[in-house]
């Protein structure tokens, strides 16, 4: 029953997105699009959104109703999966994640429509063209859902706990297993896992929209500020989600995976980080075009590149190519995504090359020491950064594919390359906002940065005297305070200038100054977030102490990093699908009991190796991170580590996202003086 409904919904969405692509293109090509073609476009869009929403709801319903005749439910769900993980199971595995992808894409299409039609000047062909591109992308993803990644197949042969054969024909005789194996145990361990993938998808899929506007502008020969402003807006939206999603992903890894780290440079993480880097580059270079009309060609390259990287990332993480280069052909989704990647990249760059005559790039850079020059440096660094991550991620695969030779590329490589680039970025982030547009005279720049520079160096001196002489930490503190201090100095001087004619207090002018240029100050807030994150990363990477595995019987105590850890006993809890053994470790400091941590090992019935859950004692200066490698009644094997200022990293990441959000909600409307409608605001934010 639900299989039939789901199949119908997906097919409807597929047809509707194809229709959207055609109707959008027709409306875009006709400069005086009549109300009939607009109405067709609107209808197809609504059908697509409703059908995509329907598919998701049906999938959730099948999960909640334990309908094991639906192949996805049989293979990835179990009766014992607790709330909210039964809901999150809908995107825990490949087919379901594609359904979520389709839903998010349809949501963005709707938001683009609302935004385009809410304004005063009315929508124009750029918007219709972008909707056509979104429709075409939708055809691919809904196409996946009816072919190689169909979650709504009918289970026709069942083993005890899984579905051994299934059919795409909804009227096949359904034989569901009595129960399923449930989702990957790692994904059932923490609430963050239910939140982080949708956020990441909102970011990932959101990058389709700027790409769609870019292609629309190229196809319609409408280069200029129109596409740029729209692409900039939607990149901000996607970027905020992507930033928050990456931060929460790192947080989840830290809270769940039990090795005390949050970022391993593994391909799944890199897949989300590369589009982030390129989108960040675009956010900056689009400002140069907006302000000075430069870099338009480069901006096209960036929006196409960011979208291509999301498809590449999806290919890397969803095709099985990472687990083994040989396993990717086992599932047809790998070749399908690879083909789509080629079509997107080759197709869009070919269109770009063909239209390059129409792309204007008038005024040249007057001086490298100017705001534009700063943005150029920023773009260069971010692009090289993305190139490093891309090369490091693909090199083992490419080498094996081309020569059969094997090589491993991991953290040592990425760290060696990323650390200097990151420091250079921090320094550029500090100097950039202090540079005026066009030409920066040394005296002006010096008058703006000398105080911040001294503040930053003084912060470094303070750290050296009071805390540590580890070079990376001191340099991160200096660079981070430099970024924040430059922004603060700009704020203060503008507030003073604003206050002078009115004779007002400069402090009281600060909110008004910020409100007058939310885009800039939101960006500065995001910079401050990056600075916080950089300091936290330097601290956790260089100041952490570890206690290598100690065996502890109940009653044993061990000294570590100024704490005393006491193992007081073991408790086990049994839920239908897992046996969780927790150790009770009391944490004492200066003769006082300051906390209790319960690191645990869970044995899931469906998984061979036990899953470790760390016990974390949070304090303001550092986390105490306890994890187990073995546990039984007689003894535990405990591993302990400190993570200095770990929470600052999460704060930094979320501050960064918040900065992007602030710049978004306060963006100026179109010049036409359109009155902002509440719906438009929601669609924009």
């Amino acid at each position: 029953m639900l299989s039939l409904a789901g199949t119908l919904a997906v097919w409807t969405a597929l047809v509707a997105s194809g229709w959207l692509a055609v109707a959008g293109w027709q409306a875009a090509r006709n400069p005086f699009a009549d109300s009939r073609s607009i109405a067709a476009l609107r209808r197809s869009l609504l059908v697509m959104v409703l059908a995509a929403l329907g598919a998701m709801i049906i999938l959730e319903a099948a999960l909640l109703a334990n309908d094991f005749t639906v192949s996805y439910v049989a293979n990835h769900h179990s009766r014992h999966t607790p709330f909210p993980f039964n809901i999150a199971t809908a995107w825990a595995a490949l087919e379901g994640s594609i359904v979520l992808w389709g839903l998010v894409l349809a949501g963005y299409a709707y938001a683009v429509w609302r935004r385009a039609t809410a304004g005063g000047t009315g929508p124009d062909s750029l918007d219709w063209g972008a909707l056509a591109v979104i429709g075409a992308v939708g055809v691919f993803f809904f196409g996946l859902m009816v072919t190689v990644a169909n979650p709504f197949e009918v289970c026709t042969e069942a083993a005890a706990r899984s579905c051994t054969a299934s059919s795409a024909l909804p009227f096949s005789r359904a034989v569901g297993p009595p129960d399923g194996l449930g989702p990957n145990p790692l994904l059932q361990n923490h609430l963050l896992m239910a939140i982080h993938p949708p956020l990441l998808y909102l970011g990932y899929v959101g990058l389709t929209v700027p790409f769609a506007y870019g292609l629309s502008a190229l196809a319609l020969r409408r280069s200029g500020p129109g596409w740029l402003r729209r692409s900039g807006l939607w990149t901000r939206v996607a970027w905020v989600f992507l930033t928050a999603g990456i931060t929460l992903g790192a947080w989840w890894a830290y809270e769940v995976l039990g090795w005390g780290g949050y970022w391993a440079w593994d391909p799944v993480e890199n897949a989300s980080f590369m589009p982030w880097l390129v989108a960040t580059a675009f956010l900056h270079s689009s400002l140069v075009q907006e302000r000075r009309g430069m870099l338009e060609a480069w901006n096209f390259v960036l929006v196409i590149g960011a979208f291509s990287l999301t498809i590449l990332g999806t290919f890397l993480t969803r095709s099985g190519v990472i687990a083994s280069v040989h396993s990717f052909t086992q599932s047809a989704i790998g070749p399908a995504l690879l083909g789509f990647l080629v079509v997107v990249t080759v197709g869009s760059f070919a269109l770009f090359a063909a239209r390059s005559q129409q792309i204007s790039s008038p005024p040249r850079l007057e001086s490298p020491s100017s705001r534009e020059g700063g943005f150029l440096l920023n773009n260069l660094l971010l692009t090289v950064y993305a190139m490093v991550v891309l090369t490091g991620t693909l090199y083992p695969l490419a080498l094996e594919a081309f020569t059969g030779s094997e090589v491993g590329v991991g953290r040592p490589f990425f760290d060696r390359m990323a650390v200097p680039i990151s420091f250079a970025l921090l320094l550029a982030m500090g100097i950039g906002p202090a540079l005026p547009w066009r030409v920066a005279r040394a005296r002006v720049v010096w008058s703006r940065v000398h105080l911040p520079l001294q503040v930053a160096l003084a912060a470094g001196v303070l750290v050296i005297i009071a805390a540590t002489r580890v070079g990376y930490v001191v340099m991160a503190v200096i660079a981070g305070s430099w970024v924040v201090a430059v922004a603060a100095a700009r704020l203060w001087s503008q507030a003073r200038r604003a206050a002078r004619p009115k004779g007002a207090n400069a402090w009281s002018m600060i909110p008004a100054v910020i409100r007058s240029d939310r885009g800039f100050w939101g960006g500065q807030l995001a910079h401050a977030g990056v600075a916080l994150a950089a300091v936290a990363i330097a601290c956790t990477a260089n100041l952490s102490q570890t206690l290598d595995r100690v065996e502890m019987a109940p009653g044993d105590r061990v000294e570590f990093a100024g704490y005393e850890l006491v193992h007081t006993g073991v408790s086990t809890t049994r839920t239908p699908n897992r046996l969780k053994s927790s150790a009770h470790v009391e944490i004492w400091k200066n003769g006082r009991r300051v906390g209790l941590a319960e690191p645990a090992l869970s044995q899931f019935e469906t998984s061979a190796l036990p899953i470790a859950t760390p016990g974390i004692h949070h304090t303001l200066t550092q986390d105490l991170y306890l994890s187990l490698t073995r546990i039984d009644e007689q003894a535990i094997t405990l591993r302990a580590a400190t993570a200095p200022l770990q929470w600052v990293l999460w704060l930094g990441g979320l501050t960064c996202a918040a900065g992007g959000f602030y710049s978004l909600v306060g963006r100026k409307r179109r010049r036409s003086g359109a009155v902002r409608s509440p719906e438009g605001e929601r669609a924009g934010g």
Partner: protein
Amino acid sequence: MADPTGMRLLLRWVSPLLTLALAAFVVVSLTTADPAHQDRAERIGKQVRCPACEGESIAESPSSYAADMMGYVREMVTQGLSDQQILDRLMAAYPRSQMLDPPFQTRTALLWALPATALVTGLLLAFYRLRKPVAPESIRDST
């Protein structure tokens, strides 16, 4: 601050000197600091991908198999073997893809060269293409 001559004096002399002094203090303290002590076994372990887990090195992984591998590394360190000897023995039966730190070799040349090429190309482009004299336009002072 409001006095223009005082301001100029500050900008021209006091401020650079203060900056230099602070920078000198930082540079001297950092260069004379004890080199960060890092356990040799830990450093070697960070170059080896844990076979029984995903993504982490054996030095970081909490899995007990990684612990056993680290124990082997520590034992060889106390025996006085060189880093390369230790890695060779530990990884004799594992494929080279288990190493996390790619070596400098001809087959990895592109790995190092590609990012460097991107950097150089970008710099050259920025320098030669974008820096051409332009006709002066009306200058809008903006901050």
